[in-house]
């Protein structure tokens, strides 16, 4: 493993963790409103998978997507400003935490309705296939979304027409307060593409190196024209479902077990042990992540709000009464 890559992963996960903790603080202070779904515990999934993607690839995600946006190169300033609802946010303050977008980064949005990322992703894949483009789509979703009809409908079409879509399940075991074995007859998500013949693989989603490798392999499959692939990353969220949820339905033992598998600690210990990284490096990266996030908060706070309520509903402003008084 190249040392630079390890350092990159480590910094990415530190930034992700710090960004989310700062968002929680700002939410508590009333600076961020609405639904806020945070990612601590799951960092290895977005970091490992998206660092394996090419800049030309497209990304579609659900609402827990701040880290995915950061990994695609959307600046922490632009993401934080969006959480603050400011005009400098990556969606101009019109989307908020659950709806981050960036055309420049081919980041096609966070979506708040569970199961929407599937049809959107196959649509992008369809267009790419039509144009015989080398780019592919990475479609993220939670394990809870797998029981939505769109999962099965879309995997069927993706397989039928061999669309270049990598389906990445972020299996954190919970759909809000309902654990997977209480909502799914088959809990091995990677097997659930079998009805459409979509090959699947399971990977430890707490291990960024494993996720990175598995994504590289899966992307190769998808990019070669062999059709879609389903990658299940088994992970865990350390916080509640959203800031509105205390997560009280999980036992202290379960939490402790999973926190022991913290993807950051995991990588830190291994990297130190293998001598890929030094304590000094870690200290420096930690400081950098803090400084970047502090700056993002400062930037967001000082940014102006959007003011035009009617902007961008249509390509041109549309009067539903066509100008009548």
């Amino acid at each position, binding site marked *: 493993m190249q040392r630079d890559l390890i350092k990159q992963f480590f910094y990415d996960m530190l930034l992700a963790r710090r960004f989310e903790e700062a968002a929680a603080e700002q939410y508590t202070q009333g600076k961020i409103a609405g639904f806020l779904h945070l990612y601590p515990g799951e960092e290895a999934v977005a970091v490992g998978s998206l660092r394996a993607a090419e800049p030309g690839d497209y990304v579609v995600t659900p609402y827990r997507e701040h880290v995915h946006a950061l990994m695609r190169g959307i600046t922490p300033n632009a993401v934080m400003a969006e959480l603050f609802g400011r005009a400098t946010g990556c969606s*101009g303050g019109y989307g908020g935490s659950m709806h981050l977008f960036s055309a420049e980064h081919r980041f096609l949005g966070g979506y708040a309705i569970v199961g929407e990322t599937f049809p959107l992703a196959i649509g992008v894949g369809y267009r790419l296939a039509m144009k015989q483009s080398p780019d592919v789509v990475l479609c993220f979703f939670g394990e809870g979304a797998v029981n939505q009809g769109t999962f099965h409908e879309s995997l069927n079409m993706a397989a039928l027409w061999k669309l270049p879509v990598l389906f990445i399940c972020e299996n954190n075991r919970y759909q809000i307060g309902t654990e997977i074995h209480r909502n799914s007859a088959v809990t091995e998500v990677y097997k659930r593409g079998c009805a459409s013949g979509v090959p699947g693989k399971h990977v430890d989603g707490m291990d960024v190196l494993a996720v990175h490798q598995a994504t590289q392999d899966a992307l190769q499959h998808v990019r070669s024209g062999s059709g879609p692939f389903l990658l299940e990353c088994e992970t865990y969220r350390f916080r509640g479902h959203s800031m509105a949820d205390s997560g009280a339905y999980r036992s202290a033992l379960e939490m402790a077990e999973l926190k022991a598998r913290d993807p950051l600690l995991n990588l830190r210990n291994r990297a130190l042990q293998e001598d890929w990284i030094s304590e000094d490096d870690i200290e420096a990266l930690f400081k950098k992540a803090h400084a970047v996030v502090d700056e993002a908060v400062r930037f967001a706070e000082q940014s102006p709000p959007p003011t035009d309520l009617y902007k961008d*509903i*249509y390509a041109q402003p*549309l009067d539903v009464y066509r100008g009548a008084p």
Partner: protein
Amino acid sequence: MTRTRNADAEMIAPARPRHELMVWEALNLALDHALAADDAVFVLGEDVGLYGGSYRVTQGLYAKYGEWRVRDTPISENSFTGLGVGAAMVGGRPVVEITTVNFALLALDAIINLAAKIRYMSGGQFHVPLVVRMAGGVAKQLAAQHSQRLEHTVMNVPGLRIVAPATPQDAYWQLTQAVREDDPVIVLEHELLYFKKGPFDIHASAPPMHSAAVRRPGAHVTLIAWQRMVDVCLQAADELATDDIHAEVIDLRSLRPIDLPLLVASIKKTHRAIVVEEDCKFAGAGAEIVAALQETVFFELDGPILRVAAADTPTPYNGALEATSIPDAAAVVHAVRRMVGPREE
């Protein structure tokens, strides 16, 4: 990526140009021209390809443009409509056919939560040049689940445009305009209009996609309708004319936006108006039209604006009952007579 070309296509596709076309032929021609003009355009839906479309609208196009541009889909309305949204976000110009509006209920997430909101939620970074065509209305004894009218469901959604052509010429014009539009457009078609013949001039220049049209001028009452109810109103106007009551019949053509200025101009002349709609009266499209008009022309009116609408029931299977459930010319004539009163000079 197979691009099949088939000489049969030329034989199957309607001969053109022609002075008269049926609505389905006009729609077919619009799609043919759109597919030929722009590589980004593609058509998808159930049975649109090899089979040629449940109402023949896509006949011949699969042979001509191949499977990637005329795509037969599985029965997955929400996902293939959402597929259209995704493709539209990255440069495609999909035309989704949902066989009937009844099935579109399964695609409302893609239409309302996705297509209508992505431009706004993304701060204008992504647009969704998507057309969703769907056939609705009461046809011939298809029973309650196949006879719905869903104008009201989509009219209330900012971000959508809705057109409802009633003639072959408008079907051609408005579908052509819809495909070129950078916003999502719902094209409401009517099951009983597909085989209606009407004058067609390929060279005539199109009015704006959302303007209404006066189909018959008259001085005494304004009848406002769309889709099949336009014909019902024209029939009623014929009958009323024998009594020297002259109804002005307006074909709305568009339901979002509504061409309110044209309606206002008409009512300033007639001082009376009736909205004739095939859907149930309660919370239907007519409710919006009447409300907008009373806010605008109240002091021009000789009396309240009325609605002649469908009965507040699911559509029955029995043919005679079905006929009584939606407005016909007699119902319109009756309403006008009551409104205008006996014309005694």
